[in-house]
């Protein structure tokens, strides 16, 4: 009961912060703020989603791009097949990516450590090959997705609409991660991360929980990918399956800290914003270099991320 109330308060707080962010972006009076902010928020969703499997449960997933692209390509498919509003496409993206997550879980969860990571990377390669050879969604050529100038029934420019959707998704992802973290499920995930054999001996149904983690994580990544074709206007396999997504969604939680929902949020805000700034001021190619350098730095100085660093400093005082 008590925790239910606290979750309610947290949802309210999240909504309030989201509203402030939107109003803040709106008062800047520049559409570029929405354009850049969308990308940062997208990484908040991806990093939070990755962390449910990678951080809480301890299974490193290199296939973020695959789940993201599944969401994006299900939108491309339905854009041609039967156009629907973006929120519906987000749900479809979640279902498709969630199901693939479940399937991937069944096939790969017997693998541990590096082997699991390699298998997830392979999933991305296999799916990309499929999409490249699927003409209906554009194949290797890519697909144009012409977005409407404005949203029906809403007096918002389209980019602001997309920003709002991504903002809602980010809030959803964070609320989900926080609920999971403090629930029975979260304790089960942490037990799996620490010692799978001991978790089984303690009565934790490890396979079932790992499948829940891959499904949940995959679904959230698919949600993040679903609005992407409307955002970018032209989707090709190499941009949907870009390694950037996999690298960033691992680096962001690592830099922020993997044991709590705060970590991926901090990491994504920090790294995502930094990348947007460098894209504009220096060059877009510097992005990944920055990620790499920051990762190396954090592994050496703060292996438990910003949260770990904070706790260490806080305890010493």
């Amino acid at each position, binding site marked *: 009961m008590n925790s239910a109330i606290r979750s309610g308060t947290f949802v309210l707080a999240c909504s309030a912060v989201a509203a402030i962010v939107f109003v803040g972006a709106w008062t800047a009076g520049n559409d570029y703020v929405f354009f850049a902010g969308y990308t940062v928020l997208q990484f908040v969703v991806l990093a939070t989603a990755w962390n449910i499997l990678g951080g809480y449960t301890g299974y490193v997933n290199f296939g973020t791009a695959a789940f993201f692209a599944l969401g994006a390509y299900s939108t491309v498919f339905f854009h041609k097949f039967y156009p629907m509003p973006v929120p519906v496409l987000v749900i479809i993206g979640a279902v498709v990516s969630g199901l693939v997550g479940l399937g991937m879980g069944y096939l790969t969860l017997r693998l541990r450590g590096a082997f699991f990571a390699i298998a997830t990377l392979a999933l991305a390669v296999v799916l990309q090959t499929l999409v490249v050879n699927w003409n209906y969604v554009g194949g290797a050529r890519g697909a144009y997705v012409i977005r409407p100038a404005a949203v029906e029934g809403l007096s918002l420019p389209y980019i602001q609409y997309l920003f709002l959707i991504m903002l809602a998704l980010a809030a959803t992802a964070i609320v989900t991660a926080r609920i999971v973290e403090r629930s*029975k499920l979260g304790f089960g995930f942490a037990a799996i991360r620490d010692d799978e054999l001991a978790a089984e*001996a303690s009565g934790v149904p490890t396979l079932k929980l790992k499948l829940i983690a891959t499904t949940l994580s995959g679904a959230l990544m698919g949600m993040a990918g679903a609005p992407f074709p409307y955002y970018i206007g032209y989707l090709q396999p190499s941009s949907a399956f870009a390694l950037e997504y996999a690298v960033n969604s691992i680096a962001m939680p690592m830099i922020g800290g993997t044991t709590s929902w705060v970590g991926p949020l901090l990491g994504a805000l920090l790294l995502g914003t930094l990348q947007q700034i460098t894209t504009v001021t220096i060059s877009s190619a510097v992005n990944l270099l920055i990620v790499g350098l920051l990762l190396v730095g954090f592994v050496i100085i703060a292996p438990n991320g910003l949260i770990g660093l904070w706790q260490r400093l806080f305890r010493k005082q």
Partner: protein
Amino acid sequence: MATQLLDVERLSKRFGGFVALDEISLVVTAGERVGLIGPNGSGKSTLVNCLCGTLVNEAGTVRFEGRDLAGHSAHQRTHLGMARSFQLPRPFTGMTVADNLRVPLLYTVGARRKTLTESEIGTRCEELLTLVGLADRARHLPRDLTQVDMRKLELARAMATEPKLLIADEAMAGLSNSEVNDIVGLLIRLNEGGITVILIEHIMRAVMSFSQRLVVLVSGKKIADGRPDDVMRDAEVERAYLGQ
């Protein structure tokens, strides 16, 4: 007539060409304290792993309260009331000592009773930690514990599943005399509380003071099973331990 809690029949396990367990049969009655001994590599831990579902045995059956356990995974066996401690302590390193117990409480006791409130979990954690003498360590991380405390945590976590049968796999290796007495005392108290205990141990003093019955494994075969004093006088056991 006392009820059979565990009934192992002609259980065999091989690793490639190596026969680790060769047609082991063993019956454990509810409420018993059984000691399981054998030289290194005789198959004791393999037997525990087969009983608890960590390994799958190729032949033979394991029955628990009359139920055939074939196809039951480790966590399902824990739910039925089998608990084990690991030879080398395997605590959940990222959680506090109290949270280490919270996991089995949530997943076994909570699942059986449907409702387990936060305050009930807290009380139960406290009870278990007091029972093993770790009450003042509740908020510490496992890495801050000493070896003996780590083994006590291991036992407490097994106890948190509210088992009918507790299998303690070398719970005392590397401990000092007084620490061994501590753990033996603890296991006897648990047994008096109604839990059947199988103790796997090298320290003969502990095994002899604990066991009501002694089972000896050598090279994957059961060579003796009976009252501890009789078993220790057995010529075959003597040969296995002391050589000819």
